[in-house]
């Protein structure tokens, strides 16, 4: 019996989504074909587009299907930047938070390294919040040269939720479009594209019970994008490639369910999370929670997210020992060839490299139960003791 506590990495598909996926996979038809089979596939895609738009508070024409979150982020950052620079060569600067996922961070750094962009980073506070005043200050000074602002909706490591609408309003006051990576938020937090004021928003299916390999960039109709890949001109001419009818269908089914259950599920997950955090901190091992955590809070932090710092340990030792005890977790930070590096998110939040070493991200999802939390809390004391011994030896 294993306790899977890594739902922010990926979560099991909902049975209804699997059913819908399998049924759609069995049918032939390229949505771009003009015959009956093609029209049927197209109808499935468009019906899914409408359902997804409705669930996200967007218009169907604003949904650009992609292969997932990474592609959508790249399309927003690179495609959005290139389009804006093309229209106004003076706008070469990106304004980006220091706690983005690598799918945003790396395209930004690529643009900077290749001489296509400059960047101003918005550093968060110790909680992981980006201050609207900081954005206002940067834009007051440099607004005329900015192409795009991007701030992650809910951070993938510490779960901190950003004041997106407030930030978007500031960007708009300077005539600058705003993007947000909402991969960790969608299906878990109330999220309305139109009301948020965003111009671009990234979502993906597999973090909410849909399949891996399908996501979308929600792009306001006014937003110009340069395609990353050229081809058949699907998806408003910005995302060529045969549409994955089965994938988007399963995405729509999973999203509908996640949104329908969201408020009840959020309260359930918050209760589990609070028990997990309180239990870990109550072991007398010096464990702290990173980011802002208030018991019962369902707004400032993704409900299923717990992020713990275990002083005097290395995250990879904790991960191994928990894995051996049947508890599957993440260190939260990106890996290089399987080696966790100190998290850029924690460093940006002001934690030292030493503090950031013993990081554990635990993320609960729709199948999580009290038994998962119990398994983690039962394993933790022995695991921490061993991991500390290992850290002292190295």
């Amino acid at each position, binding site marked *: 019996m294993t306790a899977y506590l890594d739902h922010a990495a990926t979560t099991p598909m909902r049975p209804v989504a699997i059913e819908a996926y399998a049924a759609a996979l069995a049918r032939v038809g390229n949505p771009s074909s003009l015959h009956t089979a093609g029209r049927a596939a197209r109808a499935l895609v468009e019906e899914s587009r409408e359902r997804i738009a409705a669930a996200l508070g967007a218009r169907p024409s604003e949904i650009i299907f992609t292969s997932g979150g990474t592609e959508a982020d790249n399309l927003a950052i690179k495609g959005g930047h290139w389009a804006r620079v093309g229209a106004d060569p003076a706008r070469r600067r990106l304004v980006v938070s220091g706690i983005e996922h690598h799918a945003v961070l790396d395209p930004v750094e690529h643009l900077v390294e290749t001489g296509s962009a400059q960047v101003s980073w918005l550093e968060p506070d110790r909680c992981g919040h980006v201050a609207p005043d900081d954005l206002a200050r940067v834009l007051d000074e440099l607004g005329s040269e900015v192409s795009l602002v991007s701030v992650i909706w809910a951070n993938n490591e510490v779960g901190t939720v950003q004041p997106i609408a407030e930030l978007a309003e500031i960007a708009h006051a300077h005539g600058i479009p705003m993007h947000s990576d909402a991969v960790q938020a969608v299906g878990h937090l109330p999220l309305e594209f139109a009301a948020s004021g965003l111009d671009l928003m990234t979502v993906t299916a597999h973090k909410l019970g849909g399949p891996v390999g399908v996501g979308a960039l929600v792009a306001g109709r006014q937003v110009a994008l340069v395609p990353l890949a050229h081809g058949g001109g699907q998806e408003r001419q910005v995302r060529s490639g045969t549409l994955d009818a089965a994938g988007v269908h399963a995405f729509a089914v999973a999203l509908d369910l996640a949104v329908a259950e969201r408020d009840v599920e959020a309260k359930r997950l918050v209760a589990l999370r609070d028990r997990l955090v309180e239990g870990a901190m109550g072991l007398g091992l010096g464990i702290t929670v990173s980011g802002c955590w208030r018991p019962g809070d369902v707004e400032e932090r993704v409900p299923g997210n717990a992020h713990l710092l275990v002083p005097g340990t290395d995250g990879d030792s904790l991960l191994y020992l928990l894995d051996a005890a049947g508890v599957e977790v993440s260190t939260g930070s990106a890996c290089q*060839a399987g080696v966790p590096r100190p998290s850029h998110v924690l460093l940006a939040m002001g934690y030292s490299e030493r503090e950031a070493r013993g990081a554990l991200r635990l993320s609960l999802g729709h199948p999580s139960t009290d038994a998962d939390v119990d398994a983690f809390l039962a394993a933790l004391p022995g695991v921490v003791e*061993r991991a500390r011994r290992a850290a002292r030896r190295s």
Partner: protein
Amino acid sequence: MRVVAAMSGGVDSAVAAARMLDAGHEVVGVHLALSRSAATLRESARGCCTLEDAGDARRVADRLGVPFYVWDLADRFATDVVEDFVAEYAAGRTPNPCLRCNEKIKFAALLDKALALGFDAVATGHYARIVEGPGGERELHRGVDPAKDQSYVLGVLDADQLAHAFFPLGDLTKDEVRAEAAARGFAVAKKPDSHDICFIPDGDTRGFLTRALGERPGEVVSTDGEVLGRHTGTYGFTIGQRRGLGLDRGSLDGRPRYVVGIDARAHRVVIGTADLLGIEDIVGVDARWCGAVPAGELEVGAQVRAHGEEVPATALVLADGRVRVRLAQRVRGVAPGQAVVLYDGTRVVGSATITQEY
């Protein structure tokens, strides 16, 4: 026992891990990340530490059905192996980084971490044998494949380290290991052996040292002190080296010339004829013994470089802990910084680092 199988991604460590599992141990595969710049994909005929190697190791672990992790020992490796390697060359010595890696990384940093995490031992794909001695102590012996025997680079291990080591390939030849890997369906069965120093993947040691140390020009002189030419760094030379001396004058009286001495402090490389290379008296420091420190004069076999012949010798531990080794015949290419490993039959008795004073 609970065993960490160190898995480089090569064929040897793959078969070693499989054999540990067959022997009934609880095995976890661990690949060591030893470089910060591992983000290269290349056919790893030379060296280690590429993403491809980590992936190959992972696939073997998958096939065996054992857990697999990558442990980051890059900092320790940089300090204990790479910096040591550079410092040794800078001091005019010729280090053996594989030996240092076994001593400081695989059977120190890795073993310590494994023990702390609750493992009992580390297994590697080295060609050497561990044999239980008459008193139950673990003895290190040569592997049965004379072409692959790696006991020389393990000779630095002490009794404590050996007590937590497994070398499951010691009874096999390389051909047998490859055949076994193929029979087990490992994709790495035909992967080429690595030959070079893993942190110098292009094989250009002199270029690596030049980048690390900068140019340190000096004179190339004869044993009489006559200046024969100039060089850009003594670290580009090894005792016994014949090629690449960069001299504009011909040979000494028609006889081939070799590096016979390196004086790093004076930036001087000394050139002489072959007869000067024959050494029969060696002093070793930093001696490591596989068991108790031997008393009195020992009749041993001595090996002075990784793929060198063993020659009969007598060894005596001096009062200050140094070891004096008298070889029964003159041996060429004895380089300070290399290890002299002492054998009793196939058993490793101990080792020491060869010093300048001979």
